């Protein structure tokens, strides 16, 4: 184990001194995401709003009707919470873009003519805060109008008005949220273009990062250092594993930089479930490394391996829609035969705040692909690392 970590440390030290590798693996994806994402980014996606309604009073049914109304769906996606604290936590962790807590005495205070408020929590994205604020203000404005009318008409009208409030409150057509996009924007599904391309290029470059392991092994075989490692009393398997782990850690660093930069630099919302995202990155890197090792075991030279692998990754990225959104609609199921498809779909599902259960299905398939490729790579590894037959 010590030999493995020593090798990992020195592999990372070597990578840190290869400026061209760092530029290609980290600088290039950030540039591509910015260029493609900016070119297509013309719509605002719904804000994920964490909601807890503590109020059980007479206004409750009206509040429920408002939040479940389809007319606010283009602007707000509801994330149910179980307490005020959970609302706050979901916003703090970045899982929700905005939080709303409706206190228990809201109906009572309102009907008693006292000041009654909802507690809101703004998130990190300005445009999402604005969208959520606009929808909530619209509801509140309508509610105030009704209460004013009720005070004028008298308490007898209370029940009727209360009943009607649901329909009045949800008339949010007056709220204008800029969806300036044309039909092509729908190609990005529940994500915006920046999210779409961030996910696609993260996956593509993680696959390229996976190739680093095979390149390092072939380079070391060619230079004779691998032979030297084989002649050491430490475990050769641990050394080889260390070289592969070193490349995987570079890919992890790459993922971290891309996600951080796109989040804080370009305002990309990754959906907040970073544990899952880490898993997707790990599985993608494993699949990429395994695929590169398999190709290296058949290719006679490093150049052949690199060429074949790069063609394969570009084809997979293209088929999965990473270069042209919506290509999946034209080529049918072909994209499902790529690693990129399952990784992209998983990431986009997390970004759009989909139900966690459905994301596991995609991650499960990705894990199966990574496992099968890894097993095959282990069987072929000796062809890559052994100097002699």
């Amino acid at each position, binding site marked *: 184990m010590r030999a493995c970590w020593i090798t990992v440390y020195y592999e990372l030290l070597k990578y840190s001194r290869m400026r061209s590798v760092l530029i290609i693996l980290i600088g290039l994806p950030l540039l591509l995401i910015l260029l493609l994402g900016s070119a297509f980014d013309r719509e605002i996606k719904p804000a994920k709003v964490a909601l807890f309604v503590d109020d059980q009073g007479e206004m409750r049914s009206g509040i429920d009707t408002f939040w479940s109304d389809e007319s606010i769906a283009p602007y707000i996606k509801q994330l149910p919470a179980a307490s005020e604290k959970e609302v706050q936590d979901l916003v703090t962790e970045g899982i929700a873009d905005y939080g709303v807590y409706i206190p228990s005495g809201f109906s009572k205070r309102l009907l008693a003519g006292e000041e009654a408020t909802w507690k809101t929590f703004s998130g990190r994205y300005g445009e999402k805060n604005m969208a959520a604020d606009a929808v909530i203000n619209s509801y509140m404005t309508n509610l105030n109008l009704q209460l004013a009318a009720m005070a004028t008409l008298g308490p007898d009208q209370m029940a009727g008005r209360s009943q009607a409030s649901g329909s009045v409150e949800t008339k949010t057509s007056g709220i204008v949220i800029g969806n300036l996009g044309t039909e092509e924007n729908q190609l990005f599904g529940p994500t915006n273009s920046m999210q779409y391309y961030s996910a696609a290029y993260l996956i593509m470059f993680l696959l390229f990062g996976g190739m680093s392991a095979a390149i390092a092994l072939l380079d070391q075989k060619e230079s004779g250092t691998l032979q*030297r490692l084989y002649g050491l009393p430490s475990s050769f398997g641990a050394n080889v594993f260390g070289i592969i782990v070193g490349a995987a850690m570079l890919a992890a660093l790459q993922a971290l930089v891309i996600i951080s930069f796109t989040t804080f630099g370009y305002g990309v919302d990754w959906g907040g479930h970073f544990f899952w995202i880490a898993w997707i990155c790990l599985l993608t890197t494993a699949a990429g490394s395994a695929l590169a090792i398999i190709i290296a075991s058949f290719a006679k030279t490093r150049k052949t391996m690199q060429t074949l692998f790069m063609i394969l990754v570009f084809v997979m990225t293209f088929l999965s829609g990473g270069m042209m959104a919506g290509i999946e609609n034209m080529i049918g199921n072909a994209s499902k035969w790529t690693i990129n498809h399952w990784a992209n779909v998983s990431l986009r599902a997390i970004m759009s705040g989909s139900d966690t259960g459905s994301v596991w299905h995609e991650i499960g398939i990705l894990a199966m692909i990574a496992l099968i490729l890894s097993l095959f790579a282990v069987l072929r590894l000796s062809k890559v690392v052994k100097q002699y037959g």
Partner: protein
Amino acid sequence: MNLVSFHEVVKKYDTSIIVNHLTFYIGEGEIFGLLGPNGAGKSTTISMLSGLLSPSAGDITVDGFSIRKQPLEVKRRIGLVPQELAIYETLTARENVTFFAKLYGLRGKLLRDRVEEALQFVGLLERAKDMPSTFSGGMKRRLNIACAIMHRPRLIIMDEPTVGIDPQSRNHILESVRELNRLGSTVIYTSHYMEEVDAICSRIGILDQGKLIACGTKEELKRQTGQEEKLIFDIDGRYDAALLEMKEHPGVKLVEERDNGHCLEVTVKESSSILQDLLFITQKHGITLRKLSRIEPNLESLFLQMTGRSLRDE
């Protein structure tokens, strides 16, 4: 005491036999030269000894440990200097040596001391912080050696360690080999340069087509092959009668004229016993002797005689 023993070692690839029933030993404290043309099985033999390849049959022991049964024990006792420059271009000289030292299990102060010692030994301590990409070919070769000796191995295997370097670096390396030997390491040295093997090796093994065709000290090899010496007489004056008399001497095998009769090349079995006779003949026939030189059989000629091939022509 033998440090290394080869016992009936065979290496086969499919139907071709690369190493064919190799049996020999290397004593502790020797500098053993392994000679052979390309394809003779030299690299395969070294690869089997250093644990990179498994023998198809037979066994090799180092310090009593079998390469088949206790490969890690064998590897602990070996420092391998491969023919390739097996160093990392993006690590400094010190980092290169430290990396391999750590994998040999060294740590702490011992690690630091041994790394310094190895760099000092190969004359690279002042360049310890520099990348090998800034080094000359000779300096890289020296770093290649430092990466193999920092754990003070009992057996150092050097596979063509002076390929493609300047004479100064070559001398430095040859002197290092002698010094390592003086410090107690046994050395196995392969080279295409006969004069290097001739200069530093105490015993020599000659491999050809997977077989050990000769093994011993240079003198033993000479005896084995019955190699002859040559006496070169640079002369002035008529030599016909002297030439005839020399040819009739029982110790002389051949006399040839060279340089339009200004030089006689006399091939003899052993020069010391008949030199006086030959000098007497020249004096008797009034020949002025300007210069006399003796050519001993060298490894090149030994190799040529044994294999029918020149080592560097392969």
